[in-house]
């Protein structure tokens, strides 16, 4: 009954498939019995639990779900939706997605067991690459709130048996550096891509050489934003350890994929690969137009199924994330995987300072001011390595521009949780959009130079 170890080199793909099928069958039986959402989906597809006799049947016949499906379910069955598969009193933690899409926040119940799983799916990638009991780990990802990513790191650090150094998000980077120095030795760092960049810059500005100031580091681990490979190599050189990356989300209850010991830079200096944690999450990569599975080396949309989640399991959930897929057979390991550094979106969502920001949400805020004729926005890496957002706004006619810029900034902040500077420009400086407006540019990677 016990699982093979979660080390790709030691894992047998056929055995992994048997574990996945057993878990899928139990999951499907359970949700068909306990969730009218999933029962309705299966009935509509003329699929019964007993029909799921292979992973192929599951992949071919179990219907997809999307964010919009979950929001509609919640609207009809508040607050968790009918996909909640346990009695409400068994929910020990409420998770919500960020809510900046302008579409609504998905709600997830977590049982006591799910909370542990959530922590495990943060600890797993870190322990795989060197975090050990007794280590001190710096966690720079904002803690708490209602997302899984806000709760997972602290749970994960405890599960790993390590000591968590988790400075408040509001603390300046300089103050965080002071804490790092005070609580040395530091063995592991977890941060967003952008904050890892910022932290490196500030350390160097303060006169430190990271690899000398923190010689005990087993690894640095980033998530959430893309980066150029030259930057990744420079980070490894400056810190004197391997750079790692993970892919995770609230829907995945933590990380669904992460780099192994080789790290985020491939042996040829190109991009590394994140291994799927396929005993815990079934990952598929599909063509978003046809729904067909893509081939190894191709890009597609990541679809995830939680194999061990009790309260609010997602089954064949379309993430909207664009990934490059590598099949296990092509990698010589038991796990499939996705390319490091380049996870993008099929919609226009941008990940800014840990917030999911959809241009539609900014549009709604900016154009709620009738004086606005047009605007464009850009996100970039500013002085000191900070992620900055700028809105260049043109007004229709004479108005109190100064008063309006402040009001627009506040409205955008309230809607997206991201502070953006507002600059007034002449209408002639902004483009004319004749088809679909492409108001945003993401220039952050150009700014990642160390």
């Amino acid at each position, binding site marked *: *009954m*016990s*699982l093979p170890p979660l080390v790709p080199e030691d894992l047998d793909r056929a055995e992994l498939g048997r*574990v996945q099928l*057993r*878990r899928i069958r*139990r*999951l499907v*039986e*359970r949700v068909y*019995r*306990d*969730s*009218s*959402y999933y029962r309705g989906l299966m009935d509509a597809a003329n699929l019964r639990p007993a029909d799921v006799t292979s992973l192929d049947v599951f992949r071919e016949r179990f219907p997809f779900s999307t964010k919009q499906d979950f929001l509609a379910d919640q609207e009809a*069955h508040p607050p968790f939706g*009918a996909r*909640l*598969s*346990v*009695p*409400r009193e*068994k929910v*020990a933690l409420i998770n919500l997605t960020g809510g900046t899409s302008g579409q609504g926040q998905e709600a997830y119940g977590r*049982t*006591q*067991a*799910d*909370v*542990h*799983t959530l922590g*495990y799916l943060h600890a797993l990638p870190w322990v795989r690459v060197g975090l050990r009991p007794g280590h001190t780990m710096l966690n720079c990802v904002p803690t708490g709130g209602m997302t899984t990513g806000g709760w997972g790191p602290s749970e994960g650090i405890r599960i790993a048996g390590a000591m968590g150094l988790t400075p408040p998000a509001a603390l300046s980077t300089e103050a965080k550096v002071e804490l790092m120095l005070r609580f040395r030795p530091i063995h592991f760092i977890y941060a967003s891509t952008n904050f890892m960049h910022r932290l490196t810059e500030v350390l160097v500005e303060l006169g430190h050489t990271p690899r000398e100031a923190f010689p005990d580091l087993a690894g640095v681990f980033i998530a959430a934003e893309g980066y150029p490979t030259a930057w990744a190599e420079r980070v490894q050189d400056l810190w004197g350890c391997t750079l790692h990356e993970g892919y995770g989300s609230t829907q995945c209850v933590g990380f669904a994929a992460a780099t192994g010991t080789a790290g985020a830079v491939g042996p040829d200096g190109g991009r590394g690969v994140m291994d799927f944690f396929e005993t*815990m999450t079934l990952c598929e990569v599909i063509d978003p137009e046809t729904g067909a599975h893509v081939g190894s080396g191709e890009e597609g949309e990541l679809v995830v199924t939680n194999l*061990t989640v*009790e309260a609010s399991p997602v089954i064949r959930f379309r993430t909207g994330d664009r990934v490059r897929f590598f099949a296990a057979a092509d990698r010589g390991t038991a796990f499939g995987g996705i390319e490091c550094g380049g996870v993008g979106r099929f919609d226009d969502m941008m990940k800014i300072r840990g917030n999911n920001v959809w241009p539609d949400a900014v549009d709604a805020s900016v154009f709620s001011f009738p004086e606005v004729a047009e605007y464009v926005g850009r996100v970039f890496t500013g002085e000191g390595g900070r992620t900055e957002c700028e809105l260049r706004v043109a007004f229709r006619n004479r108005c109190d521009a100064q008063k309006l810029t402040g009001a627009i900034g506040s409205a955008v902040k309230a809607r997206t949780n991201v502070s953006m500077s507002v600059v007034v420009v002449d209408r002639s400086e902004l483009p004319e959009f004749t088809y679909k407006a492409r108001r945003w540019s993401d220039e952050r990677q150009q700014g990642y130079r160390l």
Partner: protein
Amino acid sequence: MTDTAAGDSVRILRDMQRLADELCGSADPLMRGQAEFLKGRIAALASIAGADLSQDEGGQQ
């Protein structure tokens, strides 16, 4: 933990789960809450170790 014990971890965790279940019947609400916490942790550990999730929850919708 020896290799033998590691291979048998699901059985051990299931035994622990049954013991935690007994504590969940406590009349003391604080003990009951802590026992539920413990039982949940053990259930997840068993799942991570290779067991399937309990089928006895549910009946929600």
